Protein backbone atom coordinates (compact mmCIF):
# COMPACT_ATOMS: atom_id res chain seq x y z
CA UNK A 1 0.00 0.00 0.00
CA UNK A 2 2.76 2.38 0.95
CA UNK A 3 4.63 1.37 -2.12
CA UNK A 4 1.71 2.29 -4.29
CA UNK A 5 1.36 5.73 -2.69
CA UNK A 6 5.07 6.32 -3.03
CA UNK A 7 4.95 5.46 -6.73
CA UNK A 8 1.97 7.75 -7.26
CA UNK A 9 3.78 10.60 -5.54
CA UNK A 10 6.90 10.07 -7.63
CA UNK A 11 4.79 10.10 -10.76
CA UNK A 12 2.98 13.26 -9.78
CA UNK A 13 6.19 14.91 -8.81
CA UNK A 14 7.97 14.15 -12.07
CA UNK A 15 4.84 15.17 -14.05
CA UNK A 16 4.53 18.35 -12.10
CA UNK A 17 8.23 19.09 -12.48
CA UNK A 18 8.07 18.61 -16.23
CA UNK A 19 5.13 20.97 -16.51
CA UNK A 20 6.68 23.44 -14.12
CA UNK A 21 9.83 23.43 -16.23
CA UNK A 22 7.74 24.00 -19.42
CA UNK A 23 9.16 20.75 -20.79
CA UNK A 24 7.87 18.18 -23.24
CA UNK A 25 5.56 16.06 -21.14
CA UNK A 26 3.80 13.12 -22.84
CA UNK A 27 1.59 12.46 -19.85
CA UNK A 28 0.39 16.07 -19.78
CA UNK A 29 -0.39 15.86 -23.47
CA UNK A 30 -2.33 12.68 -22.89
CA UNK A 31 -4.34 14.29 -20.10
CA UNK A 32 -4.97 17.59 -21.90
CA UNK A 33 -5.69 16.28 -25.41
CA UNK A 34 -9.30 17.47 -25.42
CA UNK A 35 -8.23 21.09 -24.93
CA UNK A 36 -7.15 21.05 -28.57
CA UNK A 37 -10.26 19.57 -30.16
CA UNK A 38 -12.19 22.84 -30.48
CA UNK A 39 -9.24 24.95 -31.69
CA UNK A 40 -8.44 22.24 -34.23
CA UNK A 41 -11.99 22.16 -35.58
CA UNK A 42 -12.00 25.97 -35.76
CA UNK A 43 -8.70 25.85 -37.60
CA UNK A 44 -10.10 23.45 -40.20
CA UNK A 45 -13.06 25.77 -40.76
CA UNK A 46 -10.74 28.81 -40.81
CA UNK A 47 -8.83 27.14 -43.63
CA UNK A 48 -11.60 25.62 -45.72
CA UNK A 49 -14.04 28.53 -45.67
CA UNK A 50 -11.59 31.20 -46.89
CA UNK A 51 -10.07 28.86 -49.50
CA UNK A 52 -13.52 27.99 -50.80
CA UNK A 53 -14.62 31.62 -50.91
CA UNK A 54 -11.29 32.74 -52.36
CA UNK A 55 -11.49 30.05 -55.01
CA UNK A 56 -15.01 31.06 -55.99
CA UNK A 57 -14.03 34.72 -56.30
CA UNK A 58 -10.69 34.35 -58.07
CA UNK A 59 -11.89 31.56 -60.35
CA UNK A 60 -14.78 33.74 -61.49
CA UNK A 61 -12.47 36.72 -61.96
CA UNK A 62 -9.93 34.64 -63.91
CA UNK A 63 -12.59 33.21 -66.21
CA UNK A 64 -13.98 36.72 -66.79
CA UNK A 65 -10.49 38.08 -67.43
CA UNK A 66 -9.71 35.20 -69.78
CA UNK A 67 -11.69 36.72 -72.65
CA UNK A 68 -11.10 40.30 -71.47
CA UNK A 69 -7.38 40.45 -71.04
CA UNK A 70 -7.50 44.11 -69.98
CA UNK A 71 -8.95 42.88 -66.67
CA UNK A 72 -5.83 40.88 -65.76
CA UNK A 73 -3.64 43.84 -64.78
CA UNK A 74 -6.11 45.59 -62.44
CA UNK A 75 -7.14 42.32 -60.79
CA UNK A 76 -3.52 41.31 -60.27
CA UNK A 77 -2.69 44.77 -58.84
CA UNK A 78 -5.57 44.76 -56.39
CA UNK A 79 -5.16 41.18 -55.19
CA UNK A 80 -1.41 41.74 -55.11
CA UNK A 81 -1.85 44.80 -52.89
CA UNK A 82 -4.11 42.82 -50.54
CA UNK A 83 -1.49 40.10 -50.40
CA UNK A 84 1.19 42.52 -49.18
CA UNK A 85 -0.77 43.75 -46.13
CA UNK A 86 0.85 42.23 -43.03
CA UNK A 87 -1.58 39.68 -41.68
CA UNK A 88 -1.57 40.88 -38.06
CA UNK A 89 -2.24 44.45 -39.15
CA UNK A 90 -5.00 43.29 -41.49
CA UNK A 91 -6.79 41.41 -38.70
CA UNK A 92 -6.84 44.52 -36.52
CA UNK A 93 -7.63 46.94 -39.33
CA UNK A 94 -10.76 45.01 -40.25
CA UNK A 95 -12.23 44.91 -36.77
CA UNK A 96 -13.94 48.33 -36.85
CA UNK A 97 -15.79 47.09 -39.95
CA UNK A 98 -16.47 43.48 -39.21
CA UNK A 99 -16.15 43.30 -35.44
CA UNK A 100 -14.29 40.63 -33.47
CA UNK A 101 -14.84 37.04 -34.44
CA UNK A 102 -14.97 34.63 -37.34
CA UNK A 103 -16.03 37.13 -40.00
CA UNK A 104 -12.91 39.27 -39.65
CA UNK A 105 -10.59 36.29 -39.89
CA UNK A 106 -12.63 34.90 -42.77
CA UNK A 107 -12.40 38.12 -44.79
CA UNK A 108 -8.70 38.58 -44.18
CA UNK A 109 -7.77 34.98 -44.94
CA UNK A 110 -9.93 34.99 -48.06
CA UNK A 111 -8.10 38.07 -49.34
CA UNK A 112 -4.76 36.28 -49.04
CA UNK A 113 -5.87 33.42 -51.29
CA UNK A 114 -7.04 35.65 -54.15
CA UNK A 115 -3.72 36.48 -55.78
CA UNK A 116 -2.43 32.91 -55.70
CA UNK A 117 -5.54 31.30 -57.14
CA UNK A 118 -6.25 34.05 -59.67
CA UNK A 119 -2.73 33.91 -61.02
CA UNK A 120 -2.69 30.14 -61.31
CA UNK A 121 -6.05 29.93 -63.07
CA UNK A 122 -4.94 32.68 -65.47
CA UNK A 123 -1.61 30.99 -66.18
CA UNK A 124 -3.34 27.65 -66.62
CA UNK A 125 -5.81 29.04 -69.13
CA UNK A 126 -3.04 30.84 -70.98
CA UNK A 127 -0.98 27.66 -71.26
CA UNK A 128 -3.63 25.78 -73.25
CA UNK A 129 -2.07 24.96 -76.65
CA UNK A 130 -3.25 27.38 -79.34
CA UNK A 131 -3.76 24.56 -81.83
CA UNK A 132 -6.12 22.72 -79.47
CA UNK A 133 -8.21 25.88 -79.18
CA UNK A 134 -8.13 26.43 -82.93
CA UNK A 135 -9.18 22.85 -83.59
CA UNK A 136 -11.96 23.11 -81.01
CA UNK A 137 -13.44 26.26 -82.54
CA UNK A 138 -12.90 24.92 -86.05
CA UNK A 139 -14.87 21.82 -85.20
CA UNK A 140 -17.77 23.91 -83.97
CA UNK A 141 -17.43 24.24 -80.21
CA UNK A 142 -18.92 27.46 -78.88
CA UNK A 143 -16.81 29.75 -76.69
CA UNK A 144 -18.51 28.33 -73.62
CA UNK A 145 -17.96 24.73 -74.70
CA UNK A 146 -14.35 25.59 -75.48
CA UNK A 147 -13.92 26.90 -71.94
CA UNK A 148 -15.56 24.03 -70.09
CA UNK A 149 -14.57 21.11 -72.28
CA UNK A 150 -11.09 22.07 -73.40
CA UNK A 151 -9.53 25.05 -71.65
CA UNK A 152 -10.47 24.40 -68.02
CA UNK A 153 -9.65 20.67 -68.09
CA UNK A 154 -6.29 21.50 -69.63
CA UNK A 155 -5.67 24.25 -67.07
CA UNK A 156 -6.54 21.86 -64.22
CA UNK A 157 -2.96 21.03 -63.17
CA UNK A 158 -2.17 24.74 -62.74
CA UNK A 159 -5.47 25.46 -61.02
CA UNK A 160 -5.03 22.66 -58.51
CA UNK A 161 -1.41 23.66 -57.92
CA UNK A 162 -2.72 27.11 -56.99
CA UNK A 163 -5.30 25.55 -54.71
CA UNK A 164 -2.56 23.58 -52.94
CA UNK A 165 -0.43 26.63 -52.28
CA UNK A 166 -3.44 28.65 -51.16
CA UNK A 167 -4.57 25.94 -48.75
CA UNK A 168 -1.16 25.44 -47.18
CA UNK A 169 -0.65 29.18 -46.83
CA UNK A 170 -4.05 29.59 -45.22
CA UNK A 171 -3.36 26.87 -42.65
CA UNK A 172 -0.34 28.90 -41.55
CA UNK A 173 -2.10 32.27 -41.60
CA UNK A 174 -5.11 30.91 -39.70
CA UNK A 175 -2.84 30.60 -36.69
CA UNK A 176 -3.22 34.39 -36.32
CA UNK A 177 -7.01 34.26 -36.43
CA UNK A 178 -7.20 34.32 -32.59
CA UNK A 179 -6.05 37.96 -32.79
CA UNK A 180 -9.45 38.71 -34.27
CA UNK A 181 -11.11 36.51 -31.68
CA UNK A 182 -11.81 33.72 -34.16
CA UNK A 183 -10.02 30.94 -32.29
CA UNK A 184 -8.06 28.28 -34.09
CA UNK A 185 -4.85 26.58 -33.04
CA UNK A 186 -3.20 29.96 -32.60
CA UNK A 187 -5.23 30.46 -29.44
CA UNK A 188 -3.62 27.71 -27.28
CA UNK A 189 -0.34 28.38 -29.03
CA UNK A 190 -0.38 31.96 -27.82
CA UNK A 191 -1.77 31.27 -24.35
CA UNK A 192 1.14 29.11 -23.26
CA UNK A 193 3.77 29.99 -25.75
CA UNK A 194 6.69 29.00 -23.46
CA UNK A 195 5.30 25.56 -22.66
CA UNK A 196 7.00 23.09 -25.00
CA UNK A 197 4.27 20.44 -24.74
CA UNK A 198 1.68 22.96 -25.85
CA UNK A 199 3.82 24.27 -28.69
CA UNK A 200 4.51 20.78 -29.98
CA UNK A 201 0.85 19.76 -29.95
CA UNK A 202 -0.67 22.97 -31.36
CA UNK A 203 2.15 23.53 -33.85
CA UNK A 204 2.23 19.87 -34.79
CA UNK A 205 -1.51 19.87 -35.50
CA UNK A 206 -1.01 22.86 -37.83
CA UNK A 207 1.69 21.03 -39.74
CA UNK A 208 -0.37 17.85 -39.91
CA UNK A 209 -3.37 19.78 -41.16
CA UNK A 210 -1.34 21.44 -43.91
CA UNK A 211 0.16 18.10 -44.92
CA UNK A 212 -3.24 16.42 -44.97
CA UNK A 213 -4.77 19.10 -47.20
CA UNK A 214 -1.74 18.90 -49.46
CA UNK A 215 -2.14 15.16 -49.89
CA UNK A 216 -5.86 15.50 -50.53
CA UNK A 217 -5.44 18.11 -53.27
CA UNK A 218 -2.51 16.22 -54.78
CA UNK A 219 -4.57 13.04 -54.91
CA UNK A 220 -7.46 14.91 -56.49
CA UNK A 221 -5.05 16.30 -59.06
CA UNK A 222 -3.81 12.84 -59.99
CA UNK A 223 -7.37 11.59 -60.31
CA UNK A 224 -8.64 14.41 -62.51
CA UNK A 225 -5.59 14.61 -64.79
CA UNK A 226 -4.80 11.04 -65.83
CA UNK A 227 -3.60 12.35 -69.20
CA UNK A 228 -0.72 14.15 -67.49
CA UNK A 229 1.00 10.86 -66.84
CA UNK A 230 0.58 9.58 -70.40
CA UNK A 231 3.75 9.42 -72.43
CA UNK A 232 4.64 7.59 -75.59
Amino acid at each position, binding site marked *: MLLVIAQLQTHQRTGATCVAENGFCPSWIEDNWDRYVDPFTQHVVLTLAPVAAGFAISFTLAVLAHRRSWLITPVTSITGALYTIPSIAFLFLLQPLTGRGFLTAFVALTCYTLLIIFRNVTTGLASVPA*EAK*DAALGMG*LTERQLLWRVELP*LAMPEILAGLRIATTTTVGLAAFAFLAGAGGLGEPLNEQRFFKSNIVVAGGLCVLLAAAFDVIVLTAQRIVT*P*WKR*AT*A
Partner: protein
Amino acid sequence: MPALFGDPPVVTSVDSPTELGQSPHSRAATLEFREATKIYPGTAGVAVDGLSLEVPAGEICVLVGPSGCGKTTAMRMVNRMIDITRGDILLDGDSVKERQPAELRREIGYAIQQIGLFPHMTVADNIGTVPRLLGWDKARIRSRVHELLELVSLDPDETLDRYPAELSGGQRQRVGVARALAVDPPLMLMDEPFGAIDPINRERLQNEFLRLQREMRKTIVFVTHDIDEAIKMGDHIAVLQEGGRLAQYASPAELLMEPASPYVERFVGSDRALKRLALQRVRDIDLWKAATVRVGEPVAAVRAKLADSDLTIPLLVDDDGRPLGWLSESALTGDTVEEKLRSPADPVIDLDDVLRDALADLLTRETRFAPVLDEDGRMAGILSLDVISNFLLVAPNESRSGADLVNQES
Protein backbone atom coordinates in the same frame (compact mmCIF):
# COMPACT_ATOMS: atom_id res chain seq x y z
CA MET B 1 3.83 -2.44 -90.55
CA PRO B 2 0.26 -1.27 -90.10
CA ALA B 3 -2.16 -1.68 -92.92
CA LEU B 4 -2.64 1.28 -95.18
CA PHE B 5 -5.05 4.12 -94.68
CA GLY B 6 -7.23 3.30 -97.59
CA ASP B 7 -7.53 -0.44 -97.28
CA PRO B 8 -11.16 -1.47 -97.31
CA PRO B 9 -12.22 -1.09 -93.68
CA VAL B 10 -13.09 -4.34 -92.02
CA VAL B 11 -16.10 -3.51 -89.94
CA THR B 12 -16.69 -6.52 -87.77
CA SER B 13 -19.22 -5.51 -85.20
CA VAL B 14 -21.42 -2.56 -85.87
CA ASP B 15 -24.56 -2.75 -83.78
CA SER B 16 -26.65 -0.79 -86.19
CA PRO B 17 -25.81 0.12 -89.74
CA THR B 18 -24.74 3.72 -89.22
CA GLU B 19 -26.47 6.21 -91.42
CA LEU B 20 -23.15 7.98 -91.78
CA GLY B 21 -21.06 4.96 -92.56
CA GLN B 22 -18.01 4.96 -94.78
CA SER B 23 -20.39 4.67 -97.67
CA PRO B 24 -18.59 5.79 -100.78
CA HIS B 25 -19.92 8.87 -102.52
CA SER B 26 -21.84 9.62 -99.34
CA ARG B 27 -22.15 13.37 -99.40
CA ALA B 28 -20.07 16.01 -101.07
CA ALA B 29 -20.77 19.70 -101.29
CA THR B 30 -20.00 22.20 -103.97
CA LEU B 31 -18.02 25.22 -102.88
CA GLU B 32 -17.82 28.57 -104.57
CA PHE B 33 -15.69 31.58 -103.71
CA ARG B 34 -17.36 34.65 -105.15
CA GLU B 35 -15.07 37.68 -105.09
CA ALA B 36 -14.22 36.70 -101.52
CA THR B 37 -12.06 39.39 -99.96
CA LYS B 38 -10.43 39.73 -96.56
CA ILE B 39 -8.98 42.96 -95.25
CA TYR B 40 -7.74 42.91 -91.69
CA PRO B 41 -8.75 46.08 -89.88
CA GLY B 42 -5.82 48.38 -89.31
CA THR B 43 -3.71 46.97 -92.10
CA ALA B 44 -3.14 48.56 -95.45
CA GLY B 45 -2.76 45.36 -97.42
CA VAL B 46 -5.41 42.94 -98.54
CA ALA B 47 -5.07 39.39 -97.23
CA VAL B 48 -7.31 37.80 -99.84
CA ASP B 49 -8.21 39.87 -102.88
CA GLY B 50 -11.43 39.09 -104.72
CA LEU B 51 -10.94 35.35 -104.86
CA SER B 52 -13.35 33.65 -107.23
CA LEU B 53 -13.27 29.95 -107.91
CA GLU B 54 -15.54 26.95 -107.92
CA VAL B 55 -14.79 23.58 -106.43
CA PRO B 56 -16.97 20.83 -107.88
CA ALA B 57 -18.38 18.26 -105.47
CA GLY B 58 -15.98 15.44 -104.69
CA GLU B 59 -12.82 17.22 -105.80
CA ILE B 60 -9.67 18.23 -103.99
CA CYS B 61 -8.90 21.90 -104.51
CA VAL B 62 -5.40 22.80 -103.40
CA LEU B 63 -4.63 26.38 -102.38
CA VAL B 64 -0.91 26.83 -102.87
CA GLY B 65 1.46 29.75 -102.65
CA PRO B 66 4.31 31.23 -100.62
CA SER B 67 3.74 32.21 -97.01
CA GLY B 68 1.70 35.37 -96.69
CA CYS B 69 -0.22 34.77 -99.91
CA GLY B 70 -3.50 34.39 -98.05
CA LYS B 71 -4.09 30.70 -98.69
CA THR B 72 -4.81 29.85 -95.06
CA THR B 73 -6.96 32.97 -94.69
CA ALA B 74 -8.94 31.93 -97.77
CA MET B 75 -9.50 28.47 -96.31
CA ARG B 76 -10.49 29.79 -92.89
CA MET B 77 -13.10 32.08 -94.40
CA VAL B 78 -15.00 29.00 -95.56
CA ASN B 79 -15.94 27.90 -92.03
CA ARG B 80 -15.97 31.48 -90.79
CA MET B 81 -12.97 31.08 -88.55
CA ILE B 82 -12.18 34.35 -90.29
CA ASP B 83 -14.97 36.68 -91.34
CA ILE B 84 -15.35 37.66 -94.96
CA THR B 85 -14.87 41.40 -95.54
CA ARG B 86 -16.43 41.54 -99.01
CA GLY B 87 -17.79 39.05 -101.47
CA ASP B 88 -19.16 35.69 -100.44
CA ILE B 89 -18.53 31.99 -100.14
CA LEU B 90 -21.29 29.59 -101.09
CA LEU B 91 -21.60 26.09 -99.74
CA ASP B 92 -24.01 24.08 -101.89
CA GLY B 93 -25.24 27.40 -103.20
CA ASP B 94 -25.94 28.94 -99.78
CA SER B 95 -23.91 31.78 -98.34
CA VAL B 96 -21.83 30.78 -95.32
CA LYS B 97 -22.45 34.29 -93.98
CA GLU B 98 -26.06 33.38 -93.30
CA ARG B 99 -25.05 30.51 -91.06
CA GLN B 100 -24.45 30.29 -87.32
CA PRO B 101 -20.64 29.83 -87.20
CA ALA B 102 -20.55 26.96 -84.67
CA GLU B 103 -23.32 25.09 -86.46
CA LEU B 104 -21.69 25.63 -89.86
CA ARG B 105 -18.34 24.36 -88.58
CA ARG B 106 -19.82 21.12 -87.29
CA GLU B 107 -20.72 20.27 -90.87
CA ILE B 108 -17.22 20.92 -92.16
CA GLY B 109 -14.29 18.62 -91.39
CA TYR B 110 -11.32 20.53 -90.04
CA ALA B 111 -7.73 19.30 -89.94
CA ILE B 112 -4.74 21.52 -89.27
CA GLN B 113 -1.00 21.11 -89.43
CA GLN B 114 -0.48 20.97 -85.67
CA ILE B 115 -3.42 18.55 -85.56
CA GLY B 116 -4.69 20.10 -82.33
CA LEU B 117 -5.74 16.87 -80.67
CA PHE B 118 -7.02 17.53 -77.16
CA PRO B 119 -4.27 16.24 -74.83
CA HIS B 120 -6.71 15.54 -71.98
CA MET B 121 -9.02 13.36 -74.04
CA THR B 122 -8.52 9.79 -75.17
CA VAL B 123 -8.42 9.02 -78.87
CA ALA B 124 -12.05 7.87 -78.67
CA ASP B 125 -13.16 11.11 -77.01
CA ASN B 126 -11.17 13.21 -79.45
CA ILE B 127 -12.81 11.55 -82.44
CA GLY B 128 -16.21 11.68 -80.77
CA THR B 129 -16.08 15.44 -80.18
CA VAL B 130 -18.39 16.60 -82.97
CA PRO B 131 -20.74 13.59 -82.70
CA ARG B 132 -21.18 14.51 -79.01
CA LEU B 133 -21.89 18.12 -79.95
CA LEU B 134 -24.55 16.87 -82.33
CA GLY B 135 -26.08 14.77 -79.58
CA TRP B 136 -25.44 11.29 -80.94
CA ASP B 137 -26.07 8.54 -78.43
CA LYS B 138 -23.14 6.69 -76.88
CA ALA B 139 -23.54 3.45 -78.80
CA ARG B 140 -23.62 5.24 -82.12
CA ILE B 141 -20.52 7.27 -81.26
CA ARG B 142 -18.70 4.11 -80.16
CA SER B 143 -19.38 2.25 -83.36
CA ARG B 144 -18.53 5.27 -85.49
CA VAL B 145 -15.20 5.75 -83.68
CA HIS B 146 -14.42 2.08 -84.24
CA GLU B 147 -15.22 2.37 -87.89
CA LEU B 148 -13.14 5.51 -88.36
CA LEU B 149 -10.08 4.08 -86.65
CA GLU B 150 -10.21 1.11 -88.98
CA LEU B 151 -10.66 3.47 -91.89
CA VAL B 152 -7.39 5.23 -91.05
CA SER B 153 -5.66 1.91 -90.35
CA LEU B 154 -5.34 2.13 -86.60
CA ASP B 155 -6.20 -0.82 -84.38
CA PRO B 156 -9.27 0.34 -82.41
CA ASP B 157 -8.68 -1.93 -79.43
CA GLU B 158 -5.16 -0.64 -79.06
CA THR B 159 -5.76 3.06 -79.66
CA LEU B 160 -9.24 3.86 -78.33
CA ASP B 161 -8.23 4.56 -74.74
CA ARG B 162 -4.87 6.12 -75.38
CA TYR B 163 -4.02 9.76 -74.88
CA PRO B 164 -2.46 11.75 -77.73
CA ALA B 165 0.85 11.90 -75.85
CA GLU B 166 1.09 8.13 -76.18
CA LEU B 167 0.91 8.16 -79.98
CA SER B 168 3.55 8.63 -82.66
CA GLY B 169 3.39 11.61 -85.00
CA GLY B 170 1.92 9.56 -87.82
CA GLN B 171 -0.69 8.01 -85.54
CA ARG B 172 -1.72 11.45 -84.28
CA GLN B 173 -2.09 12.62 -87.86
CA ARG B 174 -4.37 9.66 -88.59
CA VAL B 175 -6.46 10.38 -85.50
CA GLY B 176 -6.69 13.99 -86.67
CA VAL B 177 -8.03 12.89 -90.03
CA ALA B 178 -10.44 10.44 -88.37
CA ARG B 179 -11.68 13.23 -86.11
CA ALA B 180 -12.23 15.53 -89.08
CA LEU B 181 -14.24 12.76 -90.78
CA ALA B 182 -16.28 11.93 -87.69
CA VAL B 183 -19.71 13.06 -88.89
CA ASP B 184 -18.99 12.33 -92.54
CA PRO B 185 -18.88 16.02 -93.49
CA PRO B 186 -19.60 16.94 -97.11
CA LEU B 187 -16.63 19.34 -97.07
CA MET B 188 -13.21 19.08 -95.46
CA LEU B 189 -10.73 21.86 -94.80
CA MET B 190 -7.15 20.70 -94.46
CA ASP B 191 -4.34 23.14 -93.67
CA GLU B 192 -0.97 21.52 -94.34
CA PRO B 193 -2.24 18.34 -92.71
CA PHE B 194 0.94 16.43 -93.50
CA GLY B 195 3.30 19.36 -92.98
CA ALA B 196 4.84 18.34 -89.68
CA ILE B 197 5.64 14.78 -90.76
CA ASP B 198 8.99 13.48 -92.01
CA PRO B 199 9.23 13.06 -95.81
CA ILE B 200 8.91 9.27 -95.86
CA ASN B 201 5.83 9.16 -93.66
CA ARG B 202 4.38 12.19 -95.41
CA GLU B 203 4.49 10.41 -98.74
CA ARG B 204 2.80 7.39 -97.20
CA LEU B 205 0.08 9.47 -95.56
CA GLN B 206 -0.50 11.31 -98.84
CA ASN B 207 -0.93 8.06 -100.73
CA GLU B 208 -3.19 6.62 -98.08
CA PHE B 209 -5.26 9.75 -98.06
CA LEU B 210 -5.63 9.75 -101.84
CA ARG B 211 -6.78 6.14 -101.72
CA LEU B 212 -9.26 7.05 -98.98
CA GLN B 213 -10.48 9.99 -101.03
CA ARG B 214 -11.10 7.74 -104.05
CA GLU B 215 -13.65 5.94 -101.89
CA MET B 216 -15.06 8.94 -100.03
CA ARG B 217 -15.18 11.45 -102.87
CA LYS B 218 -15.40 14.39 -100.48
CA THR B 219 -15.02 17.99 -101.46
CA ILE B 220 -11.73 19.09 -99.95
CA VAL B 221 -9.93 22.40 -99.65
CA PHE B 222 -6.30 21.57 -99.08
CA VAL B 223 -3.74 24.25 -98.18
CA THR B 224 -0.03 23.74 -98.76
CA HIS B 225 3.07 25.76 -99.61
CA ASP B 226 4.61 22.78 -101.39
CA ILE B 227 3.96 22.74 -105.14
CA ASP B 228 4.87 19.06 -105.39
CA GLU B 229 2.28 18.18 -102.77
CA ALA B 230 -0.22 20.40 -104.61
CA ILE B 231 0.40 18.61 -107.90
CA LYS B 232 0.12 15.24 -106.22
CA MET B 233 -3.03 15.90 -104.17
CA GLY B 234 -5.01 18.34 -106.29
CA ASP B 235 -7.73 17.78 -108.83
CA HIS B 236 -7.51 21.52 -109.25
CA ILE B 237 -4.85 23.87 -107.99
CA ALA B 238 -5.28 27.53 -107.11
CA VAL B 239 -1.92 29.28 -107.16
CA LEU B 240 -2.04 32.41 -105.00
CA GLN B 241 0.48 35.20 -104.96
CA GLU B 242 1.38 37.98 -102.56
CA GLY B 243 -1.53 40.26 -101.83
CA GLY B 244 -3.93 37.34 -101.87
CA ARG B 245 -4.52 37.37 -105.60
CA LEU B 246 -5.33 34.27 -107.61
CA ALA B 247 -2.59 33.74 -110.18
CA GLN B 248 -4.05 30.63 -111.81
CA TYR B 249 -6.72 28.03 -111.15
CA ALA B 250 -6.21 24.92 -113.22
CA SER B 251 -5.68 21.19 -113.21
CA PRO B 252 -2.15 20.07 -112.32
CA ALA B 253 -1.35 19.13 -115.92
CA GLU B 254 -2.60 22.44 -117.25
CA LEU B 255 -0.64 24.31 -114.62
CA LEU B 256 2.56 22.55 -115.61
CA MET B 257 2.05 22.84 -119.33
CA GLU B 258 0.52 26.28 -119.55
CA PRO B 259 1.49 28.46 -116.62
CA ALA B 260 -0.61 31.60 -116.92
CA SER B 261 2.10 34.03 -115.91
CA PRO B 262 5.84 34.25 -115.27
CA TYR B 263 4.98 34.13 -111.56
CA VAL B 264 3.23 30.78 -111.89
CA GLU B 265 6.02 29.52 -114.12
CA ARG B 266 8.58 30.42 -111.46
CA PHE B 267 6.45 28.98 -108.70
CA VAL B 268 5.89 25.60 -110.33
CA GLY B 269 9.65 25.46 -110.84
CA SER B 270 12.13 25.06 -113.65
CA ASP B 271 11.68 21.30 -113.42
CA ARG B 272 8.05 21.47 -114.39
CA ALA B 273 8.78 19.37 -117.46
CA LEU B 274 9.97 16.61 -115.17
CA LYS B 275 6.98 17.11 -112.89
CA ARG B 276 4.74 16.42 -115.87
CA LEU B 277 6.25 12.95 -115.96
CA ALA B 278 4.72 12.30 -112.59
CA LEU B 279 1.29 13.25 -113.87
CA GLN B 280 1.17 11.20 -117.06
CA ARG B 281 0.85 7.50 -117.50
CA VAL B 282 2.46 5.36 -120.15
CA ARG B 283 -0.93 4.89 -121.80
CA ASP B 284 -1.18 8.67 -122.32
CA ILE B 285 1.63 8.85 -124.87
CA ASP B 286 2.28 7.37 -128.31
CA LEU B 287 4.40 4.25 -128.01
CA TRP B 288 6.63 2.65 -130.60
CA LYS B 289 5.27 -0.20 -132.59
CA ALA B 290 7.15 -3.43 -131.86
CA ALA B 291 8.09 -6.24 -134.20
CA THR B 292 6.96 -9.27 -132.22
CA VAL B 293 7.98 -12.66 -133.48
CA ARG B 294 7.48 -16.25 -132.40
CA VAL B 295 9.87 -19.20 -132.66
CA GLY B 296 9.45 -20.95 -136.00
CA GLU B 297 8.09 -17.93 -137.81
CA PRO B 298 9.51 -17.46 -141.33
CA VAL B 299 12.42 -15.01 -141.31
CA ALA B 300 11.06 -13.24 -144.40
CA ALA B 301 7.90 -12.29 -142.45
CA VAL B 302 10.06 -10.99 -139.62
CA ARG B 303 12.02 -8.78 -142.04
CA ALA B 304 8.73 -7.32 -143.27
CA LYS B 305 7.60 -6.62 -139.69
CA LEU B 306 10.91 -4.95 -138.89
CA ALA B 307 10.50 -2.60 -141.82
CA ASP B 308 7.16 -1.54 -140.39
CA SER B 309 8.47 -1.16 -136.84
CA ASP B 310 10.05 1.77 -135.02
CA LEU B 311 12.77 -0.45 -133.64
CA THR B 312 15.16 -2.62 -135.65
CA ILE B 313 15.31 -5.34 -133.03
CA PRO B 314 12.57 -7.98 -132.99
CA LEU B 315 10.99 -9.00 -129.71
CA LEU B 316 10.46 -12.71 -129.16
CA VAL B 317 7.12 -13.52 -127.53
CA ASP B 318 5.59 -16.78 -126.36
CA ASP B 319 2.35 -18.29 -127.62
CA ASP B 320 0.31 -16.01 -125.38
CA GLY B 321 2.10 -12.94 -126.69
CA ARG B 322 4.17 -12.39 -123.54
CA PRO B 323 7.68 -11.05 -124.19
CA LEU B 324 10.54 -13.49 -123.77
CA GLY B 325 13.45 -11.32 -124.86
CA TRP B 326 15.16 -9.36 -127.58
CA LEU B 327 16.17 -11.58 -130.50
CA SER B 328 19.81 -11.76 -131.52
CA GLU B 329 20.88 -11.23 -135.16
CA SER B 330 21.99 -14.85 -135.45
CA ALA B 331 18.44 -16.08 -134.79
CA LEU B 332 17.46 -14.82 -138.22
CA THR B 333 20.16 -16.61 -140.24
CA GLY B 334 18.04 -19.66 -141.09
CA ASP B 335 14.62 -19.93 -142.77
CA THR B 336 12.67 -19.75 -139.55
CA VAL B 337 13.25 -17.89 -136.30
CA GLU B 338 15.37 -19.71 -133.72
CA GLU B 339 15.28 -19.06 -129.99
CA LYS B 340 18.48 -17.10 -129.67
CA LEU B 341 18.24 -14.06 -127.40
CA ARG B 342 20.67 -11.18 -127.11
CA SER B 343 19.08 -10.08 -123.85
CA PRO B 344 16.00 -10.84 -121.76
CA ALA B 345 13.02 -8.47 -121.85
CA ASP B 346 13.82 -6.51 -118.70
CA PRO B 347 12.28 -4.31 -117.49
CA VAL B 348 8.71 -4.85 -118.59
CA ILE B 349 6.57 -1.75 -118.24
CA ASP B 350 2.91 -1.58 -117.38
CA LEU B 351 0.55 0.54 -119.45
CA ASP B 352 -0.73 2.08 -116.20
CA ASP B 353 2.71 3.00 -114.85
CA VAL B 354 3.39 6.64 -114.20
CA LEU B 355 5.85 7.96 -116.80
CA ARG B 356 8.33 9.02 -114.12
CA ASP B 357 8.48 5.49 -112.73
CA ALA B 358 8.78 3.99 -116.20
CA LEU B 359 11.68 6.33 -116.99
CA ALA B 360 13.31 5.39 -113.70
CA ASP B 361 12.96 1.69 -114.65
CA LEU B 362 14.69 2.25 -117.99
CA LEU B 363 17.51 4.23 -116.43
CA THR B 364 18.04 1.74 -113.61
CA ARG B 365 18.35 -1.20 -116.01
CA GLU B 366 20.57 0.91 -118.30
CA THR B 367 18.44 0.23 -121.31
CA ARG B 368 17.02 2.62 -123.91
CA PHE B 369 13.73 0.81 -124.47
CA ALA B 370 11.40 -1.76 -122.96
CA PRO B 371 8.18 -3.56 -123.90
CA VAL B 372 4.92 -2.24 -122.49
CA LEU B 373 2.14 -4.63 -121.51
CA ASP B 374 -1.55 -3.94 -121.08
CA GLU B 375 -3.59 -5.15 -118.13
CA ASP B 376 -4.04 -8.58 -119.75
CA GLY B 377 -0.29 -8.99 -120.13
CA ARG B 378 -0.29 -8.49 -123.89
CA MET B 379 2.12 -6.30 -125.82
CA ALA B 380 0.95 -2.72 -126.11
CA GLY B 381 4.08 -1.25 -127.67
CA ILE B 382 7.55 -0.13 -126.80
CA LEU B 383 8.54 2.71 -124.53
CA SER B 384 11.90 4.27 -125.27
CA LEU B 385 13.92 7.20 -124.02
CA ASP B 386 13.23 8.84 -127.39
CA VAL B 387 9.49 8.53 -126.86
CA ILE B 388 9.78 10.22 -123.47
CA SER B 389 12.06 13.00 -124.64
CA ASN B 390 9.76 13.71 -127.59
CA PHE B 391 6.87 14.00 -125.15
CA LEU B 392 8.84 16.43 -122.98
CA LEU B 393 10.12 18.50 -125.87
CA VAL B 394 6.69 19.35 -127.19
CA ALA B 395 6.51 23.06 -126.50
CA PRO B 396 3.68 24.03 -124.11
CA ASN B 397 1.98 26.14 -126.80
CA GLU B 398 1.82 23.26 -129.22
CA SER B 399 0.58 20.81 -126.66
CA ARG B 400 -2.97 22.03 -126.44
CA SER B 401 -4.31 18.77 -127.70
CA GLY B 402 -2.07 17.00 -125.24
CA ALA B 403 -3.45 19.05 -122.41
CA ASP B 404 -7.02 18.41 -123.46
CA LEU B 405 -6.28 14.73 -123.61
CA VAL B 406 -4.91 14.82 -120.10
CA ASN B 407 -7.92 16.71 -118.84
CA GLN B 408 -10.25 14.16 -120.29
CA GLU B 409 -8.19 11.47 -118.74
CA SER B 410 -8.25 12.97 -115.24
